[in-house]
């Protein structure tokens, strides 16, 4: 799978609206790695190093972050439906990001205005964190997390965030409204090294923290009390998982807009293949998410070239039918 991810990454760097022979792409990458600046001239170099490479890396990070977040939330809530998109965490992050798009011009002045790359991810992170915390507080009574409450509360929170985003859309001017519309469909376009430096310090620690969480989440599958008696620091695991999910979803939403269905589809696929052990599930979800998003991005930027499709359309077009198939192939009723 790691090999598949690597191959796809190379394909993604090699393909684009501008045809660059694979040999030339390899040459450029090699020259960059070895610091051989003599070969680094011309438009090809710029396209490969400043457009495609950051874009593909952003796709890897966002895809991995979203898929792991989905797997973490499903483990945390012990429910296959938990997904940052379905339970309103993305909507919360989206609301905060929309607020920075629409209200940014009015309230951010001076030095803050000069740091849009910092304000948007930070705002999205806060939005993701707040909605995750509220969701968790609502769904947890006396140490027990009710999944039905969590799902319903998630729907309500998502609707609330959606309504407030709608309010922002109403007061926005034409330009902001269009930005908002396209942003809400998600895109890896406009990826830059600056964006990468904003998201990498968030997603990479999440990926590194997975081994710490895997054992705890495996224990949680038995139930919270049982996990506690097994000596698992349940509260700490939960807090860490929530923080990491909010961070990763916030950063993803901020840098790529709303990209749906990665968080729910990928962990399910992996679970079908290797079973529910989080020690395998989490890292493989990361790889799978990276593959799905980078693959979807290849479709998004080639299918209507020289224009490009918002990636959220592509992931939903792949993800939603798959999700339905997943539901239909179950023999028994869904146990929520």
């Amino acid at each position, binding site marked *: 799978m790691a090999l598949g991810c690597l191959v796809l990454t190379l394909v993604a760097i090699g393909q*684009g*609206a*501008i*045809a660059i022979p694979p040999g030339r792409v390899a040459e450029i990458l090699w020259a960059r790695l070895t610091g051989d600046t003599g070969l680094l001239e011309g*438009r090809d170099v*710029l*396209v490969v190093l*400043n*457009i*495609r490479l950051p874009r593909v890396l952003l796709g890897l990070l966002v895809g991995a972050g979203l898929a792991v977040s989905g797997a973490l939330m499903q483990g945390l809530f012990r429910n296959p439906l938990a997904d940052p998109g379905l339970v309103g965490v993305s909507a919360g992050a989206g609301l905060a990001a929309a607020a920075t798009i629409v209200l940014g011009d009015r309230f951010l002045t001076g030095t803050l205005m000069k740091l849009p790359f910092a304000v948007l991810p930070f705002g999205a992170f806060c939005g993701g964190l707040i909605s995750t915390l509220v969701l968790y507080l609502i769904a947890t009574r006396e140490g027990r997390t009710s999944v039905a409450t969590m799902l319903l509360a998630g729907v309500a929170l998502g609707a609330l965030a959606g309504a407030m985003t709608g309010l922002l859309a*109403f007061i926005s*001017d*034409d*330009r902001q409204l*269009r*930005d908002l519309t*396209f*942003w809400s469909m998600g*895109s890896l*376009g*406009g*990826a*830059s090294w600056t*964006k990468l430096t904003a998201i990498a310090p968030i997603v990479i620690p999440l990926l590194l923290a997975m081994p710490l969480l895997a054992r705890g989440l495996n224990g949680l599958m038995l139930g919270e009390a049982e996990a506690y008696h097994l000596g698992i620091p349940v509260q700490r695991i939960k807090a860490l998982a929530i923080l990491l999910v909010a961070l990763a979803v916030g950063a993803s939403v901020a840098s790529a807009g709303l990209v749906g269905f990665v968080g729910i589809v990928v962990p399910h696929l992996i679970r079908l293949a290797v079973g529910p052990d989080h020690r395998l599930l989490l890292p493989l979800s990361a790889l799978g998410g990276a593959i799905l998003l980078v693959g979807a991005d290849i479709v998004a*930027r080639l299918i*209507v*070239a*020289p*224009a*490009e499709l*918002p990636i959220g359309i592509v992931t939903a077009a792949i993800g939603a039918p798959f999700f339905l198939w997943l539901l239909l192939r179950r023999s028994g009723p869904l146990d929520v």
Partner: protein
Amino acid sequence: MVARSAHPADWHRQPDRRELSAAIGLTLLAVGSLLLPAGFASPALGQMPDRIVSVGGVITEVIYALGLQDRVVGVDSTSQFPADALRDKANVGYVRALSAEGVLSLKPSLVMVIDGAGPPGAVSLLNESGVRIARIPDDTSAAGVAAKIEAIGGVLGAAEPAGRLAAQTRARFEELATLKQAIAQKRRVLFVLSLQNGRVLVGGRNSSADAIIAHAGGINVADGIEGYKTMTDEAIMAGAPDMILMMRNSSSHNTTPDELFAMPAFAETPAAKQKRLTTMDGLYLLGFGPRTPLAARDLMAAIYPEAAIPPLKTANAP
């Protein structure tokens, strides 16, 4: 490159080759310099960018009006006038959803973008790529439209024809202003963008619809609203529009006056009593390019039919 050998015989052969290549080089240089004056004869042509990507309907319209369309390799999806543009040229997508690599794949020597083109990330990537980008300010005032034409011409190395087109546009606007002064009693106009599901989406203050109504000597009923928003039925009734203005829909069903004035919001308005609904081509009406004074005049004639507004005298001028 042949590696230099230590063998004496090779040492002797080396200068011959250099002399030969120097001779060839000098000959080429001489022939080349003979060709130079031909190049100097039309310096403007040499400077003109020959692979233009035009992002913004009004930019494309001006480029076509200047007869420079052969230099255009790509347009955005708002470039719907003239209709050939989207048929003949590569479509780089919607003005606010550009793809940096997609634009670069057309190997442009110049990318012209209207104010508000984006997303900002894609534009800054284009900037970094070293391709020449010209930003054209968007403006709906008479002076602004003429300045826009001049700006586009300046960037294209076609300042002279663009100056003529701008002067013509200015003259048309002036003529329009004279016609406007003759209007004694201004009428109230409501621009309706859509009637989706019975919700009336109107053009308020600072919208392009507001600007064209002002150019045509009307009063915008919706000037209490900012931008394009929904207006309540009661507010429409209270606004008492004398005329409803809509965009003509080329592909599908158009609202008929009977349908429109059967809606409660419009039934009691002065417009309904005289069944005053005017539909105009959306781009012609809201494009804010060289055709705008003509569009404003047509709109004026529709608002004040009894005044028999004459066609602009400059309309058929070169």
